[in-house]
Structures are given as C-alpha cells and as structure tokens.
C-alpha cells in the first residue's frame, strides 16, 4: 500500500460511524474488492498514531458479539484532515494519470 494512504483510508472508513480495528481492516479490504490488503502489523500502530494526532478518538465499547472492543471515531479535526488528504490524493492521481496517459489527454 502506498505510504500515507493507510491513514486516509482509515479516516474514510470511520466517516460513516465508529468501528473497531478488525471492522476497519475488513471494510478497507472489501471496499477495495480485496485489492488492498491491510497489513495488521501496520494497522494498529497507524490507529495509535492517528489517535495521538487527535484525528481519531478511541473508546471502549461492546462488539456485535457482546465483547469488549476498542472503537475509533472521527474527530472534527480528523474530518478536516480527511477532506484535505482526499483532495490532495485526487490531485496526485490526476497528475500521475496525465503523465501515464498523455496521448489519451491529447485525444480527449
């Protein structure tokens, strides 16, 4: 996975609502039709880092099967961050696209 994109994907995933680590990993994998495999070795440190930056907040809740689980929700700051990262990502994708497909651009 591209460096730095995991943070953005995590933020994007919990925009809908709070989720715990496993749900987040699943959501990313399913959402990308299993193209993106979340390495769990980096998921939890990433969650922790985002929490330290104040973009997400963790709280302990009860899971679907009635177990104590740690949930993460987006903070207002995280929401702003997501918007910024998303637009920067789109610019990047656009720019890379122009370099990879210059002919298409001309034709278009």
């Amino acid at each position, binding site marked *: 996975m591209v460096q730095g994109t995991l943070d953005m994907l995590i933020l994007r995933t919990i925009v809908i609502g709070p989720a*715990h*680590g*496993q749900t987040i990993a699943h959501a990313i994998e399913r959402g990308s039709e299993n193209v993106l495999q979340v*390495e*769990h*070795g980096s998921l*939890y*440190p990433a969650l*922790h*880092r985002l*929490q*330290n930056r104040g973009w997400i907040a963790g709280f302990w809740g009860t*899971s679907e*099967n009635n*177990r*104590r*689980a*740690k949930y993460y929700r987006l903070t207002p700051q995280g929401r702003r961050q997501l918007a910024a990262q998303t637009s920067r990502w789109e610019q990047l994708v656009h720019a890379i696209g122009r370099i990879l497909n210059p002919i298409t651009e001309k034709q278009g």
Partner: protein
Amino acid sequence: MNWRRFFRRRAADAEQREELEFYVDVTAEEYVARGMNLADAKAAARKKLGNATLIQEEIYQMNTLTSLEGVLRDLRHALRIIRTKPGFSIPALLSLGLGIGANIAIFSVVNAVLIRPLLYPAPEKLVGVFNSAAFSGLVIKDWPLSLRMYAAYKEDARSFEEFGVWTAGTATVSGLGEPEQIPAVSMTHGVLRALQVRPYLGRWFSNADEIQGAQKTVILSHKYWQQRFAGDPRVLGRLVLIDFVPRQVVGVMPRGFEFLNLTPDVFLPQSIGSGVPGPDDADHSGVARLKSGVSLAQANQDIARVLSIWGAREGMRTYLEQLRVKPNVHPLKQDVVGDVGAVLKIFMGALLLVLLLVCANIANLAQVRARARHHEFAIRAALGAGRGRIARELLAESLALGVLGGGVGLGLAYAGLRLLVTHGPAALPRVSEISIDSTSILFALACSLGSSALFGFIAILKSGLNSRLQNARGASASMEQLRTQNVLVVAQVALALMLLIAAGLLLRSFVALRAVRPGFTHPEQIQMVRLFIPEAQIQKPEQVAQMQADILHKLAAIPGVTAAAFTSALPLEPEHHNGNPVAVEGKTPPDGIPPNRTLKIISPGLFAALGAGLIAGRDFAWDDLLRERPVAIVSENMARENWGDPRNALGKRIRISGTAQWSVVVGVAENVYDDGVDRQPPGIVYFPGARRGIAFAIRSRRAGTEGFLREITASIHAVNSNLPLAQVRTLNDLYNLSMGRTSFALVLLGIAAAMAQTLAIVGVYGVLAYAAAQRCREVSIRVALGAEPGMVKALFVRQGLILACIGGAIGLASAGGLSRWTSSLLFGVTPVDPLTYGVAGGVILVAALTASYIPARRAASLNPMEALRSD
C-alpha cells in the same frame, strides 16, 4: 507523544494487548464460521496479525522520550566504563579533581573577598574617606584625617548622607571578673549611621556622647555581651569600667556584625574636645554614605572644595600644597579588601590555565582509549550505528567523568578552604566569609561541564569518527597528532619539575630555619604574659618598677618555675620593637650618625629565662634596676663589630644618640633572632629598668597548661587585682608564627607541585599508551619474529625517558629563572641547591619511568597472533 501512555505505561500496555487479542479472537471466529477448527483458526488469525510484540514495540516507541532514555543508557554505560577501566579513570579523575578543586577553592576566595558585596544595607553607596599626599618621593594613598578635618567635612561636605571617622585600638575592662584587654574601636556618631547597621539593643551613638564631661558611654558587640553579660537584656544602663573609667552601656550590636574587617568587642564614642588637634594627629579613618545620585568623582570634587576651605580657614594652605594633599574618596570595599585583589586574580588565571592543561591531558587519554575502541566503533558503524550515536556516547562518557571529577574537586576544595580559613595568612581579609556557597557550586558545575565538553569534543574530533570509521584496519600512525602530544608532555614535565624544585627548596629552607639557634631554647616552655600598669592605677614610675618586681617574685615562687623575668619586648614581638642609634665612646661613624640598634629594657634573669647564654661579663642585678645604675649589656654581634672580641667590650661605654648619659657595658649576650628566624639577628642593647607595659617570660615545663595559667593569674592579682593579662601565649606560638610565611608558601607550592606532578604522569602515560596502541602491529611482528619482552618494554620506556629528559632539561633551566622569584622566601639554601635539583629530577624520572612502564608492559604482553588477527 501520549503522556498518559508515557506515565501509565503498564495500564496502557494492557489495553493494547487486549485490543490485539480481541482482533485475533474476532478473526478466528470468522475463520471458524468459514469451517476451520478452532486451533487452526487461532493460528491463522495470529499469522494474519503478524508479530504482536513488534506492533506493541512500535507503539511503545511512539510514546517514549527516546533521546532521554538514550542519554540515561549512555550515562549508565559511561559509568560502567569508568568503573571497569581504572587505569584510565583514576588518573583522569585525580587530575580533574585537583584542577577543578583548586579552581573552586580560589574562586570561593575571590567570590567572598572580591565579588560578594559588603554585608551592609546598600553597600554600593558606602565609601572610605581619606586623603592622598605626595612628598619627597613618597606617595601616601590612604592618609587618615585629623579631627579638625573631620569637623570641616562634617560641616561643609554636601555629597555625604552620613559621615564619621574611627580609630581601632584596645581597651582594658575591669570590674567584670578578671580584668582583660580587648579590641575596641573609637568612632564618631556618624559611623554606624553611615553603615546603616542598627543596634540589636539600645541606640546608636549621638552628638551628646562626644561632648567631654558628659556621661561616658559604650556599645557592646553581641559576642562580648554574650560572654560577659550572659546575654542579659537588662544590660542597658549598666556601668562598665573601661580603662578604669565608668561607661554606661547604651547599645548592643547585632550578632555577627563585623566592623569593616575588624571584630572589636566594644565600640567607644570618639570624644571631640575643644582642644586644638593639629594636622599631625591625622589618624582617623573616614567612612561615609553617599547621597543618592552622587558619584565618586562628584564626591571627590566636593571634598576637594571643602579641603581648600579648611586650608584657608586653618592657615594650612601652604601645608596642603607642599604635601599635595588631595581627597581620596573610594569604595569602602577597598578598605576592607586591601590590595589582595590583584594577587587573587593572577592566581585564578593561573589555575584556569592549569585546568585547561588538565583537559588537554584527559582529551589525550580519551584519544588513547578511542584508538583502542576504533575497532568497536567501526563495527558498530558498519552495523548501522550513526556517527551521532557514537559521538553522543563519547560525550556522555566525558560528562560522567567531568561531573565525577567536579565532585572530587568539590570535596578537595572544601577541605582546602577549611585549611585556609584556619591556617591561612592573617593578612587575607573577610576570611570568615569564605565558604562554598551556591555561587561556588554553580561555578563548580560550570567547571565540570565546561571541562567535559572541552575534552569530550576534542576526543570526538580526534577519534576519527569523521573520516576514518570505514577503515578499521587503517592503523597507520598519525605523526602530527603524536607531535602535539609530545610537546604537551614535555611542557608538563618541565612545569612539574620547576614546581617540585621550588617546593623542595622551601622544604629545605624550613628545615634550615628549624635548625637555627634563635637565641632561646625550648620556646614551648616559655610562658609569656603582657601587663600594662596604667597611670590611673599607679602614678609614680618607681612604684611601677617595685610592683613589677613584686609580681616577678610571686611568679618565680610558683611550683615548677625555673626562671622568670620581664622585658619591654620578648624575641619575635615586632609590634613592641624599639630602636635607636647608639653611640660608642671613642668611635665616630663616617656620616656622624651611629648605627641603629634594638633597645630592650629588661629585668635581671631574662637570659636565664630565655635560655640564652652570656658570652662575657655578668647579668644585671636588682640593684642595677632599682637604683637606675648606668649599665648595659650588648649582643655578641654588636660587641664583635665594635671591639673585635666579646671580652674586650666589658668596661667600654655607650650611650643612646642624643642623650648625655653614658652606660658601662657589663655583659655580652648571645645573639637573638629578634626580627624573625629568617632575618639576620639585629644588634641589641639591653638596659636594666621597668616600663608600664612589659612582657613576662616564665620558664616552666607546665607552660601553656590551664592550671599553670590560673596560678600565674592568681600571683599577679595577689599584687594588684585590677591588672588585665594580655597576649597570654608561649614563645613557641611566636616562633611558629614567625615561620608561618614559609610554611604557608610551602603548603601552597606543595599542592601546586603535586598537581603538576599528577599532570605530568598522566601526560607521559597518555602519550606512551597512545604510541603503544599505534604500534601494536609493529610490536606484534617483532615479537613474532623473536623479540624478547624486555626489548619491547625498553622500546617504550626509552621513549618515555627521552620525553622526560627533554622536559626535565627545560624544567631545570627554567627553575633557575623561577628561583629569582622564590629567593626572598629561601633561607640557608642557595636557589641552585644541587641536592634539591637532584632529588626533584630523580622524582620526575621515577614518575616518568613508572608512567611509561605500564603501557610498555602491556605492549610486551601482547599475544602477537591475537593482535595481528584482530586487526
């Protein structure tokens, strides 16, 4: 950075674990739902998660102060290295401790004497008020004021808020148990007001206390109040007999109050009479508090104006002009501190230089170690340790060394200062204020950290971290580096030898001084007591003589006393010296003025009491004294000078120049080293007689014991109970005091020499250890080819000896130069004493030999196979 995680690490870790376990469980449940059995599902889930410990560690890393923990680890490591490598750390710590300690000690002195403000309110406004004068080639800077000048200044000066004058002296207190003589200061009422120190009890002096004929008053020091009045608060208003005149106590000064650099027991008001004190009794020191906003220059201008008014009014204008009298108003601190400032500053500078030398030395040593660890550094660098990481570790080592060395130094300084305060030269002002305070400790810290930074950075720069970490095998010697080290070592050896020689010469002087027969024997058995019989007690001089003779008979009757006598001045009592030109009958000196002789008025039996021999003739008899016969005894050197043989002196006549009375020489006495054992004995003329102020010399084995002193006091008071005993001590005290200058210089130079010696040893060791490390391969090959260990040792020891010899030669040559400076302190030994030079040179050689033998032995004991393979 998550502070909750940082401080509540255990709880946070538990939570983290729980979160990861939850993940494993949920994932495993999913797998089970897909049809796996439970054990496989768990294993697969764990595999998917990866290394849980690694994840935890990564999160842990995010929440630690890595730099702080790194520093702590480095320090632990450094301490371990210091502990396990005593060959490096002991000399380093020792020289660092000495260097820093000496600096702390001298800084504490400078701080107490020069830097700290005087202990009075707003001390910056306090000034000493004197005049300066210049006549016949003589410049007097602090010429005191006369009382009439005081009156004029008081009246007309506009720049002083308060102003007063004072004189120091002694006073006799009687009527409070044993009469005693105590230090006193007479002052006008403005003095204490200027200092702004309020009495603890009672009041300051006022105008009224200075009027003649009014009730006489006194202010006590806190100490004297405690001692004599047991701190009784009702002391105010009591009458005390001071110099046999009743004075009313009007105040008690606060505890610890010091009057400039004096600690008098009583303060007396200066009575200002209506009499006409001329300018010749100008013996009053002035002290004033400047009005706010008045500068020193303005005050001096103001006083110059007042002085010219005074000159015109008193008809003293030509006098002022002839003597070029000008006001000298200066900061009061100058009066307290005196002229030691310059000496202290030079000393401080010299010691800082020594500390720099110490740092250079330790950097050298560290470099030796860095070479030995070159390998380790290279491997660590290869394994990914950053240069910063390694440099930080070296710095941590230096830091630990510096702080430990600073601790050692602080201890040494503390011990040294206690020695200084108790045994230091009496001339050092504000001695009681010298202590290790927070400023000194800050200075110590700065010294430690500064030194560690200095040699730490040198070590890093020289460790080759910058350039050569890659080639662990690049062991070629850097000749340039070696040369700097060699120069440093030669300089250190030279310095050490110079100081050793100076200390050795002083030691020899001390021994020579002790060997002089000073004109008295067993001074520890000679008890001294001074008495003063004031006119208020006995008016007629012949009664004074009779009373002293009575006292002497009582003293001689005390059990254990073998001899007793009195004299106007005992040997080594320079403050009671009296000299006069003495003419010899029939001899006309070339310039008309006969040579000056020391005069002493003595009782019979003095020579027996001192243990001095009579070389010819007889001692005085009581008849000589009581009937005032014109007889005299002269010292041996004077007799030889005038008449050749002592026996020829008998019957010859001498007289004090300017008097008419001739005296017949009846005896010749052994020379007495009256001006100090290190000076030539003066020519002395003894006359029989008594004075109001005399010293008794009582020879007894019990001298100095308390019981003996009590019996002496009882004997004296049996004759007159109002006489105070002063300066009760043994002649031995004076004898030791007269050698105090030499012994103090000896101690100082001894310390300096020990420091230099340590430095030199460390330096020689450093260079050779470095060389040995450099030549490790070469030596291994030699040994492999059959060189004997002895040859290898000789190789390095020879190098050490060559360095020591070069340094020694320079040191010997410079010692000749230094001896010009020390020669004034020397006695009975020439500045180029071969024995001292030989021994000092030998000590240096042996030290250098030892210092070079250790690395030489290490080199010789190398296992060539191991050494070659390891490279």
